[in-house]
């Protein structure tokens, strides 16, 4: 058991939680704007692909990240045009985006790089690792918090920024109003449509970053379908965290923990499938508790 529960587990938790945190931050913005975005899975995948593409062709991690952001913006725009402008069903568009992303990335993988399954190359520049010298000497802090990919720390800063954006700026207030009272928002002269667009574009950007972290921070390669359910777990984290950035961050860490735990348990011959189920079951359970509380209130 000592092989499983040690400081490295916490370090792994932080690593596995990062793409969840990034994607969930985007998804909770659309959630606040009244859109259930189940296309995050596909958005992450596209970000992961274009991250690798940019990094490979320009020999620069920054270009990878920029391209991931740009592709995120485009797919967020696509999602926005269909759900907001054309008023299509958001979950149909979400599913379509997931399938689109799965097809497009593999198609491009094969027509641009000429490979099947996975693309890796020494020319892909990974995101840099960060080392804080001032905690270098403190053993346990060093193990847990040091030498992560840059995005790990960026994701934490973004949690705070999203929190401030959502609750302390007028834009955040308008986005929330677009989801809750679009009519009253309109009466004060602000277009709920515009707010929904902003949330959907930001969601694309955040998912793009999550993808770039997967393909440039976590590993330095792209594999088919490498988002592997992370979009849905992010959705679970948002619901579990009641769309609050801080709570969602907590949920993402928790789910990351179970994921990391599962991988390590597998190392000692214990099936990881059950730890992997936890985010999904926890979400249903959380929904159930909330719903029951609501029903209880109604009766009282």
């Amino acid at each position: 058991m000592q092989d499983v529960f040690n400081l490295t587990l916490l370090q792994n938790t932080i690593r596995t939680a990062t793409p969840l945190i990034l994607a969930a931050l985007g998804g909770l913005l659309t959630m606040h704007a009244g859109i259930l975005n189940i296309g995050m899975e596909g958005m992450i995948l596209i970000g992961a692909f274009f991250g690798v593409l940019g990094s490979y062709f320009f020999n620069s991690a920054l270009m990878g990240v920029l391209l991931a952001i740009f592709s995120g913006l485009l797919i967020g725009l696509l999602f926005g045009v269909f759900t907001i402008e054309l008023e299509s069903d958001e979950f149909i568009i979400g599913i379509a985006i997931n399938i689109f992303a799965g097809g497009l990335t593999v198609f491009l993988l094969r027509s641009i790089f000429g490979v099947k399954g996975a693309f890796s190359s020494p020319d892909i520049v990974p995101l840099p690792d960060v080392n804080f010298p001032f905690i270098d000497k403190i053993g346990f802090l060093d193990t847990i918090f040091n030498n992560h990919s840059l995005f790990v720390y960026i994701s934490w800063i973004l949690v705070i920024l999203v929190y401030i954006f959502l609750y302390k700026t007028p834009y955040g207030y308008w986005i929330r109003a677009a989801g809750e009272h679009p009519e009253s928002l309109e009466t004060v002269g602000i277009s709920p449509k515009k707010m929904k667009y902003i949330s959907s574009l930001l969601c694309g950007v955040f998912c793009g970053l999550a993808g770039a972290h997967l393909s440039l921070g976590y590993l330095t390669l792209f594999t088919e379908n490498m988002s592997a359910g992370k979009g849905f777990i992010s959705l679970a984290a948002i619901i579990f965290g009641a769309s609050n950035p801080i709570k969602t961050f907590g949920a993402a860490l928790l789910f990351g923990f179970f994921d990391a735990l599962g991988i390590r348990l597998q190392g000692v011959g214990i099936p990881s499938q059950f730890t992997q189920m936890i985010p999904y079951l926890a979400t249903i359970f959380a929904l159930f508790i909330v719903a029951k509380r609501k029903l209880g209130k109604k009766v009282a």
Partner: protein
Amino acid sequence: MFKIKIKENMEYLTSLFLSIFAALLIGAIIMVFNGQNPIVGYGALVAGAFGSKYKIATTFAKTVPLILTGLATAISFMSGIFNIGGEGQLYLGAFAAAYVGFTFGSLPVFVAIILAIMASALVGGLYAYFPGVLKVKYNIDEVITTIMLNSVAILFTNYLVNYPFAASQGKMGGTDMISEAFKFTKLVRLSKLNTSIFYTALIAIFMYYLIKKTSFGYNFKMVGENSIFAKYAGVNNKKYMIRAMIISGALCGIAGAFEVYGVHYRFLQNISKGYAFDGMLIALIVRNNPVGIVLMSIFFAMLKTGSNSMEIATGIPSELILVIQSIIILFIAGENGFKNIIKKRKLNKGKLVK
């Protein structure tokens, strides 16, 4: 009333064909950018889907899970409850079928197969029943719960075939082979086409009859289209939603069973390649119409089979078809919006002329 319906149908068919055409056109443009000739590409696709007896058989074999999951989606969507959990229900149904198949080899074949199909339907139906209950009793969004339950079912069966029910020898991530008695007969040698296509046809006819010709089916529709009206008419909305979920889950379970008995003869941990999602798209594209589901399933199966041949013949990656499919669905889903925008533009033009 009848005239309006014809007009509506014509409008729908027009936009359907436009959407498919536009998606194929985009596919062609991608091919050109990729340095390939789209006429050659699409030619290879059609030849690959229908060019020989074997190819036709392969295409039709692929329609089986699509038709079943399409019908499953349709019954839930038309009742206003959205079963996105077909994939999970399919996995559980497939495992149940395999379990019966490698455990009860000594039963008389006829009894055994009926038992097995019932087991699959039951498991799938039950797995859809829970999110159904959560929806009608606690108002918990079934889209979210069924998405989550998909992953749970896939992980659970994944566990089963890697640990307690792992094949005693050979293939990783699969169960033992089922007994000979359970295997459906192949219709064309070496192809995947088997007798399950006849059972699927029977199920499709039954579903058509249920949806279009019975008051039971009418009630499903009423619940989905106007729940308040349905309530006044004395239809128990909640009951029908739950029933829709159970039927939907059962059909997905059966789709899983057919994959095991007709194609793989065992449960594999990746037995479905997103069949339920394809079925869902099909149902959405044809607006839950059973006849449309059968036709669109053939079209989707043609794209799938043909794209593999296209890849071999021309080097165009078969995944292009996924892109084309998702563009079709985007256009169909956006149809109303496109129409409204065109209407608005026409109105504006009218104003300008005045």
